[in-house]
């Protein structure tokens, strides 16, 4: 595939090829509809986790598929389609968050990613909580949402991909554009923050 694309690039046919690809799909959009139907809801969840806005998440799903559609010729047939789409979605979401932050004039906006949070680890002992009982309370749900919102967008994305989508570290690192070690650290940091934030809640319920 790379060799084929080199031939195209050497011939200076990049933009022409893009138009042809789009035009070809217009003749048979059903194929791309399958991809949209398979991944639309999953990408929405990921974008929502990152932006915490339903409207933004929906716009980002559209943006993700638009970018994917336009750059289809760069997709490696041997690559993982889901990971490729997640990567586009993460990049689109990060672009959006940066723009939103700049537009709002947030000089000290929440960092998109953090290498180290520097918050002292809390110690918590005691029996395991009962999540089913905890989830009954609206107040508890709000606390959980608040704890999630306190994570950086990349940490929330890593959490979603690992704990909801059940992706491997290799897939998560590809989706986030991080080395595998950094992807693991991002997941662990997010879990540590959640645990600290929800510790009082767990103690109270225990």
């Amino acid at each position, binding site marked *: 595939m790379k060799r084929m694309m080199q031939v*195209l690039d050497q011939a200076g046919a990049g933009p022409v090829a893009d138009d042809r690809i789009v035009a*070809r799909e*217009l003749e048979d959009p059903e194929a791309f509809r399958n991809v949209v139907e398979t991944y639309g809801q999953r990408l929405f969840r990921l974008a929502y986790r990152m932006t915490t806005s339903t409207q933004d998440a929906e716009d980002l799903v559209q943006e993700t598929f638009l970018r994917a559609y336009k750059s289809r010729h760069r997709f490696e047939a041997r690559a993982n389609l889901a990971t490729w789409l997640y990567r586009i979605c993460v990049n689109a979401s990060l672009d959006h968050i940066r723009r939103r932050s700049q537009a709002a004039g947030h000089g000290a906006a929440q960092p998109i990613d953090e290498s180290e949070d520097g918050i002292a680890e809390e110690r918590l002992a005691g029996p395991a909580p009962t999540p089913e009982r905890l989830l009954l309370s609206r107040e508890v749900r709000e606390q959980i949402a608040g704890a999630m919102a306190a994570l950086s967008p990349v940490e929330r994305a890593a959490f979603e991909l690992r704990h909801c989508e059940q992706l491997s570290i290799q897939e998560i690192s590809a989706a986030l554009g991080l080395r595998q070690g950094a992807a693991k650290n991002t997941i662990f940091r997010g879990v540590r923050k959640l645990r600290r934030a929800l510790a009082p809640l767990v103690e109270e319920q225990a």
Partner: protein
Amino acid sequence: MKHLQENDFAALASGLGHDAQLEHVASCAACRDRAAEAASVVRMCAGMDLPRPRPGLEDRVVARLLAQGRPSRWCAWQGWAAAAAMVVLGAVLIQRRVPPSPPSAATPAASLTHPGANRGLTQLALADHLDRSQALLTALAHADAPSPRLQGWAADLLASNRLIEASARADGDAASAQLLAEMEPTLLQLAHFSDDAPEPQWRALKRRVAASGILFKVQVVDETLQNQISLRPQGKNLESSL
């Protein structure tokens, strides 16, 4: 014995614990409780309901793609597509008229013994095969039930799939060869799908095929191939191939 740290509990709660961490948790009640608590926090957060998009998200996405993707060179494209179709159709028709037995026959297999000599024709055969595969996979996506027509179609493609895969591999086109290898199980399952199988099995087959993204991959490779064919001085290569 040294107790586990916060990062260890995060690793365990994320299903990424090492043997040493697991062994410690098995023998230390205090750490076991904290690991269970971390796992509970993760479950709570992962299980929290998220808002759903407004109904019809997929339709809106496709509509936007159609609206934004309409190129200004539409008429030029149609001309190019017609010309390419004529070239492919001509090559396929001539190929089918060539007797299969002589060693010089322009079949995909011939390029196995003469790599490069029939590359042009191999690519045309591959493009034709991918076009038909796209059509089959699209029909499959919309078929409510198996049909002899679909199964016969899959059996036809299956018969040539491995041969074309071998030709592509011999030409050094690893991406196409890999794609055809990936497509084979789908063709095999469809060709041999039992008419008596319950409907859930049919739906499960369609879901597996959709989730694999194979149709999308076929289109990507086919488009690249079509572009490559269109960039080559077709008359000369085609004549030498035929």
